[in-house]
């Protein structure tokens, strides 16, 4: 892929994350969806940059911050909509996975733990599995700055490092865990400072710069593939919306939020870069957006056509 193709691909994937979410928010407004949604707007740079560093056969454990992880990975968007509409189009076949329990094994999307931090040991286990089977698959595990304080991180990070498991720990440090600032919850300035405690490389990158994230994660992925063990990457980012839809968001400084939105939007930043390097015109980008919008709309329509499950659905898949 040329530099231009790569950047346009990033742009398209980020736009896709954003437009998919816009549509979902419309569904929420229209009362089509129950449950809770934690919007990902603002964090597309991190999610797309990191996911783009994976191979299709790699594993991924996502976090609850929007669905950019899955959209970027190329999971069918209608399936994602279906999981929120809780109909049979969803990846969980009508169970209504919401944001929490979407999965797509054929792309290594292994699901998510609803208890924050429950994914850490599972990600290490997927890494163990890859190493055991002698593949060179890697497991990318996303988590928030708040989640980094669960003890499961310690156990999984240590085991992964001792055994040189192919895991990339990717912290989306958006500086808040609901209403709690990372500064009030975390002893170190950076989450990446913790890498030393597990004798693995740690790096803090600008999460709004999709290219920087891609490059850092690519290095970590390659390292893991070579059998040299895990890495910890911290992407500094910000969520543009409340913790969940409905959050009064009174705890964050309004100006801080506005500044991030105006100056640090990963999609705008990449657009600027593409345009100023004359790799794409405003028109080119507009075309991409329009195409993606059509795809999103089609996926949404497809999802809306699917039926709701019957009561019997609750008894399915309890055991194998």
């Amino acid at each position, binding site marked *: 892929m040329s530099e231009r193709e790569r950047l346009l691909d990033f742009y398209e994937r980020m736009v896709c994350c954003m437009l998919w979410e816009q549509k979902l928010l419309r569904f929420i407004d229209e009362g089509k969806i129950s449950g809770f949604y934690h919007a990902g707007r603002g964090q597309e740079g991190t999610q797309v940059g990191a996911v783009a560093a994976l191979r299709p056969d790699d594993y991924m454990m996502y976090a609850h911050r929007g669905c950019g992880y899955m959209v970027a990975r190329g999971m069918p968007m209608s399936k994602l909509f279906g999981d929120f509409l809780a109909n049979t189009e969803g990846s969980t076949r009508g169970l209504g996975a919401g944001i929490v329990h979407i999965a797509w094994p054929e792309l290594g999307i292994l699901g998510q733990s*609803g208890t924050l931090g429950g994914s850490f040991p599972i990600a290490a286990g997927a890494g163990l599995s890859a190493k055991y089977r002698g593949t060179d698959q890697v497991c990318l595990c996303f988590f928030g700055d708040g989640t980094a304080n669960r003890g499961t991180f310690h156990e999984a990070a240590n085991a992964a490092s001792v055994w040189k498991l192919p895991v990339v720990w990717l912290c989306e440090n958006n500086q808040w865990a*609901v209403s709690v600032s990372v500064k009030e919850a975390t002893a170190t300035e950076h989450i990446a400072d913790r890498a030393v405690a597990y004798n693995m490389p740690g790096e803090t990158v600008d999460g709004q710069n999709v290219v920087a994230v891609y490059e850092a994660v690519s290095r970590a992925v390659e390292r893991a593939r070579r059998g040299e063990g895990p890495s910890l990457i911290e992407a500094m980012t910000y969520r543009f919306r409340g913790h969940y839809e409905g959050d009064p968001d009174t705890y964050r400084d309004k100006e801080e939020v506005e500044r991030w939105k105006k100056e640090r939007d990963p999609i705008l930043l990449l657009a600027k870069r593409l345009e100023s390097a004359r790799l794409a015109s405003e028109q080119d980008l507009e075309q991409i957006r329009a195409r993606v919008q059509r795809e999103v709309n089609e996926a949404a329509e497809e999802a809306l056509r699917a039926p709701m499950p019957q009561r019997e659905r609750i008894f399915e898949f309890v055991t194998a």
Partner: protein
Amino acid sequence: MPRTISYTEALREALDEELGRDERTFFMGEDVGAFGGIFGEAAGLQQKYGKKRVFDTPISETFIIGGGVGAAITGLRPIVELQFADFVSVAMDEIYNKAAKWRYMHGGLFRVPLVIIAPEGAMGGAGPEHSQCPEALFWSAAGLYVLTPATPADAKGLLKSAIRDDNPVLFLPHKALGNTTGEVPEGDHLVPLGQAAVRRQGSDVTLVAWSAVILKALEAADRLAEEGIDIEVIDPRGIRPFDFDTVLESVEKTGRVVLAHEAPVPGGPGSEVAAVIAERAITSLEAPVKRVGAPDVPVPQSAHLERFVVPQTEDIVDAVREVTESAVTA
């Protein structure tokens, strides 16, 4: 004079009053500070009592509980919160083996005046790990008290009593009850721990129901009253200590019993009660015991499916009909 307030407001009042009453109490948990708790249960408390008394913790549930134990055995009276009751599993060792057993296993040399608030229950799409009612996991937790307030008055009165008690208490408000309202006495309203409440007197069937299911039980009782079935509705207010006397006396009177709760039937709060009835009141029974609860599956994420898992008034009505129609000697 009783006033009508919401369940959440009742919880908030209890916290407010007890924080005001005893300097040794403090309240910590995720988002309980400036945010006031994700269900509003701590609204304004940090402003009022300061960051020393009401504060946010990192997302570190073993610390929240274990730290509470450490503070409790060294002279304080911590009130701590798990954001969802499902997270008892995340700190199970701290609750089940530390808070509950510390006193016993150290020969009675410590007291553990710790209250753990952990909102439970289905609330419309919160999914398998944010909707559970875990109280029955603690039937075997000797040393621990486990409370399930069903009304605003109990939310306040049980929480205040829990905070003043010298034992560790797992306090499980039901999330779906937050906006329900009810009369709550003014002043220092305390509800004793381990005493069931008879929510409705009746002579035909004993209906024991926990937490949010009480409301449906009362609804069912009203509906069945129209059919001439006179139901006694008992709210055990928790699990430990359990007021078996009240339940057994009622069963002796009615000869028929339905146990209703939101947790799945297998291993739900009703099992132990049914077992004790089978041991101690079987000669009074005129019909088989009947339990109403969720089926033996996790809670689906979809609110659409959740309805089929959470027991409804209709399920209770059916169960009561079943025990009134059947008889031990057919």
